[in-house]
């Protein structure tokens, strides 16, 4: 019953701050929508400068394919060499693709497929298709074009993906060439992609962002909740009352958990309706996972609130924790990439587990059998923070 009044007061305080309500409910929605579209790992519209020094029809056709691909945004088509270094420095393009005729290059030996330098301008000759992607036609009477891909590697990830796209375009072109001649590659890989066949990153990011949403507001709110009482000296009154530390903990965290769940629901609606991501697993399980997660993240928030003396401190601590959680969550980069020295941080990061579970439920339709261990770890992190809070409660509020 005492808890009810604490709960009511906490909710009243949140809703009395109009800016806060906007931050709590409108910002997360915008965030989900924006992040869903913006934080994409698949890249499109890669700005490309094309330098075509080749006179061969193959080079011409490839240029055409690149120009018409939605993956690339051709910013310039040139017939003479360019200072690509300058282009990258200016950020004018991420890639420069150079088509040359082999015999025109000064050092043909550097290029792949140096075997057939023969020129000649007769009709298309038969290719055996076994050379690398760099040379289009191993033996031909036509000028043998070679293609050079120059990438701006500053953003390594995008550069790798973009390079892959170029190889894909070239490979498809080669396959089509062979198909025209009734031939095909001797080895044809068959790729079967499950769960997200279109490899659309929104399907991966969307559900993950819901997890992020649940973290930001709840943790920050809890972190400042107790500190604000310290600042306005109302905490003294709470302490002099007969409330127990556990009651104060619950009174502070339960309202935030409720707000968090409402936000998550909004986020899920956006993901389902706007991003058209199909929920394959159980919605109920999603909320159970969210509850376990909330327990852990709110305990962490409460702990921050205890060790902070001012709201600024609390915000700084939560911001720091938040970034750490986010970086090690696998939301943006795969956790497998994180060096083993830091893997233990990954292991205790509750956000990592929630991101994983939400993605599994959304995309794979996984049930409890697949992630119960993750739930347990999240719960343990929650209990440890909870007990640390209780242990430190008296000491940190009664100095």
């Amino acid at each position: 019953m005492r808890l009810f009044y604490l709960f009511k007061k906490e909710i009243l305080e949140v809703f009395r701050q109009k800016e806060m309500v906007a931050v709590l409910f409108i910002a997360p929605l915008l965030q989900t929508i924006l992040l869903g579209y913006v934080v994409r790992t698949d890249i499109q519209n890669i700005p490309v400068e094309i330098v075509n020094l080749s006179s061969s029809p193959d080079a011409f056709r490839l240029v055409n394919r690149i120009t018409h691909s939605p993956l690339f945004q051709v910013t310039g088509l040139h017939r003479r060499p360019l200072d690509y270094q300058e282009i990258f420095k200016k950020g004018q393009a991420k890639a420069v693709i150079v088509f040359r005729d082999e015999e025109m290059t000064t050092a043909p030996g550097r290029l792949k497929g140096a075997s057939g330098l023969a020129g000649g301008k007769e009709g298309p000759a038969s290719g055996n298709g076994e050379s690398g992607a760099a040379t289009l036609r191993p033996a031909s009477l036509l000028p043998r074009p070679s293609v050079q891909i120059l990438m701006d590697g500053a953003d390594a990830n995008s550069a790798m993906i973009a390079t892959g796209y170029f190889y894909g375009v070239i490979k498809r072109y080669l396959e089509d060439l062979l198909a025209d001649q009734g031939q095909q590659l001797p080895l044809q890989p068959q790729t079967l992609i499950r769960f997200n066949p279109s490899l659309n990153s929104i399907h991966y990011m969307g559900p993950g962002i819901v997890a992020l949403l649940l973290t930001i507001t709840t943790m920050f709110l809890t972190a400042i909740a107790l500190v604000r009482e310290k600042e306005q000296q109302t905490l003294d009154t709470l302490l002099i009352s007969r409330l127990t530390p556990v009651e104060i903990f619950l009174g502070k965290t339960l309202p935030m958990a409720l707000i968090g769940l409402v936000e998550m629901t909004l986020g899920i609606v956006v993901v389902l309706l706007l991003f058209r991501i199909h929920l394959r697993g159980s919605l109920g399980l999603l909320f159970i996972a969210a509850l376990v997660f909330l327990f852990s993240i709110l305990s962490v928030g409460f702990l921050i609130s205890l060790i902070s003396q001012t709201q600024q401190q609390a915000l700084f601590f939560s911001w720091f924790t938040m970034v750490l959680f986010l970086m090690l969550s696998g939301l943006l980069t795969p956790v497998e990439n994180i060096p083993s020295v830091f893997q233990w941080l990954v292991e205790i990061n509750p956000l990592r587990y929630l991101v994983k579970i939400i993605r599994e439920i959304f995309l794979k339709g996984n049930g409890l059998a697949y992630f119960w261990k993750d739930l347990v770890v999240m719960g343990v992190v929650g209990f440890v923070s909870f007990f640390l809070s209780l242990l430190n409660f008296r000491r940190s509020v009664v100095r």
Partner: protein
Amino acid sequence: MPTEGINSPVTPTPPSGSFSGGEAARGTGETVVAVRNLTRKFGHFTAVDRLNFTIQRGEIIGFLGPNGAGKTTTIKMLTGLLRPSSGEVTILGFDLRREIRQIKKHIGYMSQKFSLYPLLTARENVEFFAGISGLPPARIKQVKQELATLIPPALLRLQVADLPPGIRQKVALFTCLLTDPEIIFLDEPTSGVDPELRRNFWSLIYGLKTRGKTLLVSTHNLDEAEYADRLLIIHQGKIILEGPPEELLQRTGASNMEELFKQAIISHETP
């Protein structure tokens, strides 16, 4: 009826010196607070230095001292909000260190900042404090009605942040009395309030005394000193003078409180 005292003095009657005269008015002789060698250090700084005093039931103690003398530190220790570095405190026979839970049931505390939630209305504040004190719902309803008679209806809907200080002070005292505490600690309850409201407030305090409450009221306003039954004058963490106001005046030959206070401080600083 914990709240009737706050309502009853409708007309501001500045209490005269006669209130503090006579043993009967001063207390029943039953010691309710006993402080022995109470000390609090913050690092190398000793904020409160071996305080010794007792408070009798029904007394109004004026806890007098300049800013930074250690008044708030002492009150916070007595209410369990701050840990003493050393010394012993017994309140109503309970040991402060071991039996703070028991003590909490019998004490009220109002801080100098009035400790209300600025975003909530007075009514919501009262409901909240009544609720967390474990008052039954029927009683909570009742105290909310009592509050409505205490402050103008137009102000009931305002958030506390928008209330004038005098009203805020009244509401704070009202919430402090919700649990009907026996001993009430008021830390500078009149700071930031104009003289007339201050006098009003003191008549509320007298109302509480007539109902057998024991009060410790800290202040740095010397003109309030004579309202108390007994003064504890604290300076640099030490009690430098103690006794009923008129007795102190007589003893020291000072003509008024200000002079008394100056003398006490000078004689303390030049031993």
